[in-house]
């Protein structure tokens, strides 16, 4: 691998890692900070992508579709928390798994009824359509760099809100002891409703932003769900910084796992193992630090 190619692959891995962080950010909030196991995270991601496709088609502009899509998903999140999720904070995790798994089925059916089963493409907005030439025959799409920028902004914002603001402090306190926070005179129920809605909106936002590069199709949520949990688990439950580091690590491992050749006894091991590399990383991290890289010691 020449130095030029290596640098491009490094860029690929950072870019993929940042995209992973964006996709997992909503889960970091809902599962990592609030402690609710949300299997329906992928479904929210899919809803976002379909919203981007359908709204951009009807409004004629991706930029108009974004705020409207975010508003709709915030409403969806508030409604879900009010109707269902808030009944489960005191229950065992298994109830949360069951409920959110049911939500996946419901949303997939709704998607089939509302939008059908076709594969759709969302055009990249005109302003970001260009590509930057990197080598003599390879260019880098500007939209991917835009995604990376958005990811960094989201990461920074989340870190600031959760670590540095009063709201963040309340949320973190609520995750460790709800009743205590409640008895201090804070309406923790309302705070959690808002945080859950933000989590749903983040997942949907990721789906919307990713839609132009990933295309929009049934079952797309299932594809991102597992990798999102891997990001949160490797990074450490409750840590935004951890999720970012984990996503970047996974980006590196996945990218170079696909292209590096490693011969052991004449058998080319690495590309063959590339499907597993991410999970091997997770296993290694869990052996080394069961609470994740930045997780608080339980």
């Amino acid at each position: 691998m020449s130095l030029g190619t290596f640098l491009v692959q490094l860029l690929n891995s950072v870019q993929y890692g940042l995209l992973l962080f964006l996709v997992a950010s909503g889960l970091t909030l809902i599962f990592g900070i609030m402690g609710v196991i949300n299997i329906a995270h992928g479904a929210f991601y899919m809803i976002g992508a379909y919203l981007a496709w359908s709204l951009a088609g009807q409004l004629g502009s991706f930029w108009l579709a974004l705020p409207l899509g975010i508003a709709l998903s915030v409403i969806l999140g508030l409604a879900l928390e009010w109707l269902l999720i808030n009944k489960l904070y005191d229950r065992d995790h298994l109830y949360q798994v069951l409920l959110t798994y049911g939500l996946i089925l419901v949303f997939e059916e709704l998607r089939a009824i509302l939008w059908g089963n076709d594969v759709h493409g969302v055009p990249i907005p005109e302003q970001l359509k260009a590509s930057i030439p990197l080598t003599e025959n390879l260019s880098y799409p500007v939209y991917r760099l835009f995604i990376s920028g958005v990811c960094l902004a989201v990461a920074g914002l989340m870190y600031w809100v959760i670590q540095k603001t009063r709201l963040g402090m309340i949320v973190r306190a609520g995750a460790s002891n709800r009743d205590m926070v409640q008895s201090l005179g804070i309406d923790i129920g309302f705070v959690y409703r808002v945080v859950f809605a933000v989590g749903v909106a983040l997942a949907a936002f990721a789906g919307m932003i990713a839609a132009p590069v990933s295309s929009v199709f049934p079952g797309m949520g299932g594809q991102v769900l597992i990798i999102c949990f891997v990001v949160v688990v490797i990074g450490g439950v409750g840590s935004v910084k951890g999720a970012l580091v984990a996503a970047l690590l996974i980006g590196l491992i996945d990218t170079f796992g696909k292209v590096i050749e490693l011969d052991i006894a004449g058998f080319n091991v690495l590309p063959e193992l590339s499907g597993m590399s991410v999970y091997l990383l997770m296993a290694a991290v869990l052996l080394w630090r069961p609470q994740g890289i930045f997780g608080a010691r339980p």
Partner: protein
Amino acid sequence: MKQESEKKPQARRREFLKQGSALGGLAAIAGVPGLARAQSSGPVKLGLMLPATGTFAQLGSAIENGLKLAIDEKGGKLGGREVEYFKVDDESDPAKATDNVNRLVTRDKVDVLIGTVHSGVALAMVKVAKDTNTILLIPNAGADAATGPLCAPNVFRTSFANSQTGYPMGKVMAERGIKTAVTISWKYAAGEESVAGFKDAFTRGGGKVLKELWLPFPNVEFQPLLTEIAALKPDAVYTFFAGAGAVKFLKDYQAAGLKGRIPLYGSGFLTDGVLEAVGDAAEGVETTLHYADSLDTPKDKTFRLAYVKAYKTQPDVYAVQGYDTGLLLAQAFDKTKGGVDKPALIRAMETATVDSPRGAWHFSKAHNPVQDMYLRKVVGKQNRVVNIAIKQLDYPPADRCKMSS
């Protein structure tokens, strides 16, 4: 989704039990000889095991539509007998395949089994069909093994073999003087077989495959591999992707600036059913397949008109495969005059020539279609025919199948 579709066959079972007991009652009145007669003159039982839910649901319904169109053109009869359809949703789930196919074979006692889209499910069907000596028609699944090492006298495929759609592209590219190529696909049976077919013809024609690039299925993070392609600088790229993965690949290939610099070729599934979603990223891409959008033959025109009239939607390659399955059944049952004697039906199918919208085809010794393979080019939102890449292609070689009769 899962629960609902598990309920469906249940509900159907009840329906058929009712019908079955009604028939049984009649037979009881008429006495035992009546029962025997009912079995040879009652309806022909077709067992349809296709996906009705999940990713392949639309393919399943296109196949069923095509099949029924062909039989309806015969007055809804096969060899003069009424047809009764028994349906199971296979959910494209190999884990449930054996149970599902046993429902049709053991419970419903179908005369002919038809299915399916997913190769893993289809191979489970082949196994049951062989064990129970039931005639099986595969209207899509391309796994080479079904008409290769696992072939059987009672198993026929009316669609294609995976390697059959890759082989013609290798020949075309070698003939164009392309010296080097890189292949990229998912690491699963369909991808591996398609690439193997391509490689066979391409290297035979003097070409060299610089590198085979693989992704685990259904991973769609192509960027590292596109970087690799740019670094390897081949004359051309051969690819097998389908569905949403194909959409993303074509778009990423264009966004990486490779389109127009390194020509992209592929198996026809790359550009079938996805052109609306892909936009201009597919323009000019050439692929090979056993069907195309603009064949312009009288048979194809008639078929397309009839299909649109019946179902209010455009037919695709899957609808054609279903239609051909129906044509084959009609022809075979005409020859046996409605009889379900297996050796007679099998002989009738082996000697049949199916006058299909895709062009006439017949079965190879391995029971895979020997058919024209078209070179197509994406123009606008259509896969236009450029020419016939290979006439009456019999591939993969039928000697991979050792049939025991």
